[in-house]
């Protein structure tokens, strides 16, 4: 016998179809089983000299017999099937069908929830204030109108849900809406859990003693160095707030070395910047141009068209 050389090619096709019919059998077991079958098919073919299909019947029947004799369970879920078949198979699984029916019965609860979520999400987005006593109720005008709006939104959502059960065309847009509202439920839930905290916890007012003098981001400022747009350090610049209050620095402690401006009437002026200090024992500021190492950027904005006024001394 010179088997391998003149084995009818239908052994390969037959084997391939048997393999396909056993697609759900664990790979290792299937391979062993098919190795057994392959060797035997070659012998069958070489001994009978004819087609194995004619000898053994349809490969699918052969596979079924093999499966049952080997004690492997009949195929219920071939994994080699396409994604579409897989989805259909999952969708037709009795457990999935039962869960889907159960969820369908629970759907009205979601309808009510999504109505509220839609309204609450809109209120959050619009930055509406919320009822102080009932944290879940946004104020639309007032809390009573907010409560009415919630009831209307819930009723509308339930009506939409009931209508959608009959309207097949609305399925896709409604699915999109549900996904969006499901996502919106996250910030709404976060807001609710925040509001649900005891009122005393949220109404604690942290009072701190105001820091005397100037401060920037909480850090005290003991000097200010004003520069012109062309990078020139200015001297004795008087700074005021918008309310006209002088920006006085360190008025509490007396510093003998600080150079303090005074008015012609003799009043001290503490809001002149930069603040300078005399050399100890003298009335001389040693380096009046000393400043922080800043590099004034090149300014592209045109200078303000400030009309120069003639200085009128008092």
């Amino acid at each position, binding site marked *: 016998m010179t088997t391998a050389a003149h084995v009818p090619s239908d052994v390969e096709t037959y084997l391939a179809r048997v393999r396909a019919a056993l697609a759900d059998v664990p790979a290792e*077991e299937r391979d062993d089983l098919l190795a*057994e*079958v*392959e*060797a035997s098919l*070659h012998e*069958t073919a070489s001994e009978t000299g004819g087609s194995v299909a004619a000898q053994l019947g349809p490969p699918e029947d052969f596979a079924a017999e093999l499966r049952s*004799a*080997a004690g492997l369970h009949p195929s219920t879920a071939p994994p080699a099937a396409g994604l579409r078949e897989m989805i259909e198979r999952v969708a037709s699984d009795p457990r999935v069908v039962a869960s889907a029916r159960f969820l369908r019965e629970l759907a009205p609860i979601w309808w009510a929830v999504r109505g509220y979520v839609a309204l609450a999400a809109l209120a959050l987005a619009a930055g509406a204030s919320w009822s102080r006593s009932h944290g879940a109720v946004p104020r639309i005008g007032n809390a009573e109108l907010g409560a009415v709006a919630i009831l209307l939104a819930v009723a509308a959502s339930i009506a939409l849900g009931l209508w959608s059960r009959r309207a097949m065309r609305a399925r896709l847009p409604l699915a999109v809406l549900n996904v969006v509202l499901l996502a919106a439920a996250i910030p709404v839930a976060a807001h609710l859990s925040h509001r649900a905290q005891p009122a005393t916890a949220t109404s604690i007012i942290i009072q701190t003693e105001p820091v005397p003098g100037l401060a920037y981001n909480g850090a005290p400022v003991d000097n200010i160095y004003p520069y012109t747009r062309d990078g020139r350090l200015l001297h004795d610049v008087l700074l005021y707030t918008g309310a006209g209050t002088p920006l006085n620095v360190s008025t509490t402690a007396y510093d003998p070395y600080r150079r303090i401006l005074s008015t012609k009437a003799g009043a001290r002026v503490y809001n002149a910047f930069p603040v300078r200090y005399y050399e100890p024992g003298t009335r001389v500021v040693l380096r009046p141009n000393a400043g922080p190492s800043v590099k004034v950027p090149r300014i592209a904005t045109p200078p303000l068209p400030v009309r120069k006024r003639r200085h009128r001394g008092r």
Partner: protein
Amino acid sequence: MDRSQLLRGTLDAAALAVVAEQDGYGYDVLRRLRAAGLSDVGDASVYGTLRRLYRAGALTSYVEPSDEGPHRRYYGITARGRTQLAEARSAWAEFSQALSTLLETDVEVTA
């Protein structure tokens, strides 16, 4: 009565008996079963049965190179297989005797 139906419950014992007599590979076991008179035993049934008996530990297996085509997987009987065969033998003897008496004819299938 359909012989294949009778075979179904007794193929384990038949295959064990064949392998107990002498180690054999799939096609060889099939041929010997047929030669023994089980002409309508299905190819796939025999291969499947051998694999199942092997998985259950009643058979051991080893591969032998063959000059003709693919390597052959030989099956030999294990101690567990012999126990199973002995049990099947006594069960069959009891059963066939009872049925023979009942039917007052000889049952055609013999193991």
